[in-house]
């Protein structure tokens, strides 16, 4: 009888798949208790390295054309669709039933397509031309905030993870995403999807590990410009706001939508945008 090859799910940092520097792993077991895979438990140093990669990737990604960002996100949806069976299986291994797993992967792909569409449209929707009293052309446009820490929803399924990171990168930010244990297999496999979609290394960095261990370091990191803490408890929220104050970090505490509808949310996208207003002199 052949011995199966069990996979160890590594991290995704700077376009590479390193092991956690801490050498810590957690076992994923299926419903009857047998080993499915090992996933990495990222340390604060892994997080620090991921921020360095995200910062390095920011100038090129924020400077890329909206059209290109849309193409890459769309490409990710294509790649995901092509590997839907694998993702559904991984979601089943982490507790979803077969039908729910299939629906979740479809929803994840549709969310990517939706945000791919937003990449070159939100500027027109949220940018404004401002009437001013004087010979100036005055306009306000959104620009990406920078490096965003995303602590994704503690839910099974790939689509909650996508729901958390897609609006961040669609808007030209780079991110470090912490996937919950419940979705760790699909999240790291999704890194392979991103990796084969021409997404530049470092734009999305994916860690798996424990939120309680990493949250203080995300909240306090001076080079993280914004933070999205999904499904936050009141204690987590207070801790994050206190620690994030040191560099005036933008902190958001979104809740997951209900149901399985495909709803892209441009308000989420705008959380991670700064409004720049330009006064341009014009002739009288």
């Amino acid at each position, binding site marked *: 009888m052949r011995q199966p090859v069990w996979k160890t799910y590594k991290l995704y940092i700077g376009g590479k798949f390193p092991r956690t520097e801490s050498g810590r792993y957690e076992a994923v077991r299926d419903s009857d208790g047998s080993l499915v895979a090992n996933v990495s438990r990222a340390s604060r140093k892994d997080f620090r390295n991921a921020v360095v990669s995200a910062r390095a990737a920011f100038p090129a990604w924020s400077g890329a054309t909206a059209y290109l960002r849309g193409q890459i996100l769309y490409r990710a949806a294509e790649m995901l669709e092509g590997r839907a069976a694998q993702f559904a299986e991984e979601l089943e291994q982490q507790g979803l039933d077969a039908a729910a797993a299939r629906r979740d992967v479809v929803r994840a792909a549709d969310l990517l397509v939706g945000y791919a569409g937003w990449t070159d449209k939100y500027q027109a929707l949220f940018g404004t031309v401002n009437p001013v009293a004087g010979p100036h052309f005055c306009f306000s446009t959104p620009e990406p905030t920078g490096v965003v820490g995303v602590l994704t929803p503690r839910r099974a399924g790939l689509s909650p993870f996508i729901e958390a990171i897609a609006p961040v990168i669609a808007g030209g930010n780079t991110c470090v995403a912490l996937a919950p244990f419940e979705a760790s297999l699909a999240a790291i496999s999704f890194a392979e999807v991103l990796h084969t979609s021409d997404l530049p290394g470092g734009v999305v960095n994916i860690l798996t590990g424990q939120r309680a261990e990493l949250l203080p370091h995300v909240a*306090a990191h001076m080079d993280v410009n914004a933070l999205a803490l999904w499904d936050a408890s009141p204690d987590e929220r207070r801790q994050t706001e206190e620690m994030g104050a040191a560099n005036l970090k933008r902190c958001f505490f979104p809740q997951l939508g209900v149901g399985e509808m495909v709803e892209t949310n441009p308000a989420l996208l705008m959380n991670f945008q700064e409004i720049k207003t330009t006064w341009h002199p014009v002739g009288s």
Partner: protein
Amino acid sequence: MNASTELVLHSSTTDTAFKSLRYPAPVIDEVGVAERVARFRSRSIKAASKRAAIDLAMRMIDLTTLEGKDTPGKVRQLCAKALQPGPGAPPVAAVCVYSNMVSVARAALEGSGIHVAAVATSFPSGMSSLKVRLEEVRWAVGEGADEIDMVISRGRFLAGEDNVIFDEVAQVKEACGPAHLKVILETGELQTLDAVRRASEIAMDAGADFIKTSTGKVSPAATMDVTYVMLCAIRDFFERTGRMVGMKPAGGIRDTKTAIAYLVMLKETLGPAWLTPDLFRFGASSLANDLLMQIVKEQTKAYQSPLYFSED
């Protein structure tokens, strides 16, 4: 150095017999060097040692600005940073500037104990007459430089004219008077580690107080491999003559982790006596900020961002 060797070196011109007599081509095992150097990078540094190393590295920095666009204002700003790099950080060892900025730096640093180093001898290429280059050294010393960073004539060296290199270093050393002399080998142009080793020996025999890897204008600049070869040359020179020569890797050392690896290499090659700014320097500008970020990180326990540290 004994008198008879000096006589031989000065009297020879271009004959190959001289080379084979005095500087037989060393044979350096490049793979062995790379392997040894990789070990220095894998040492486990505990927290207290790391704090001490960061402090020492900061005190060893030659804070450098060598650009055609340098202004007195920029040099004064650099000097202010040299005096007080940041909260909880010690002053650096020296400020390194072009010779026409020496008087500005000297005035800004008067009484502080921070040295003023000038690059001279037609830096960075050295492609001028020896007369002009020596005159620049005397001028820089007159302006107030107490350290001179000279470049060797790499073209002449690669052409096999070791005696020319010896003579120019010896004459620059004489022109320096009381100022310390650092000899830049520009290892990025020397092609092989064997050449680095030979150039190191010639420079030390000719009177260098420090040997230095690079100008920072040529890539690759300092690497741990060439620095290791130069440290070994310093060790062998010390065993032969009893004189302690300093080492300055310059260019390309940007982060704390690399700086600490250099200090590990220094201590394990030359011993603790060399762990002083009098005998080891980092030629760097961006390293200071990375060290500062580490110091502030120790104080606040939060990872830092380069956005909050002034570039100059």
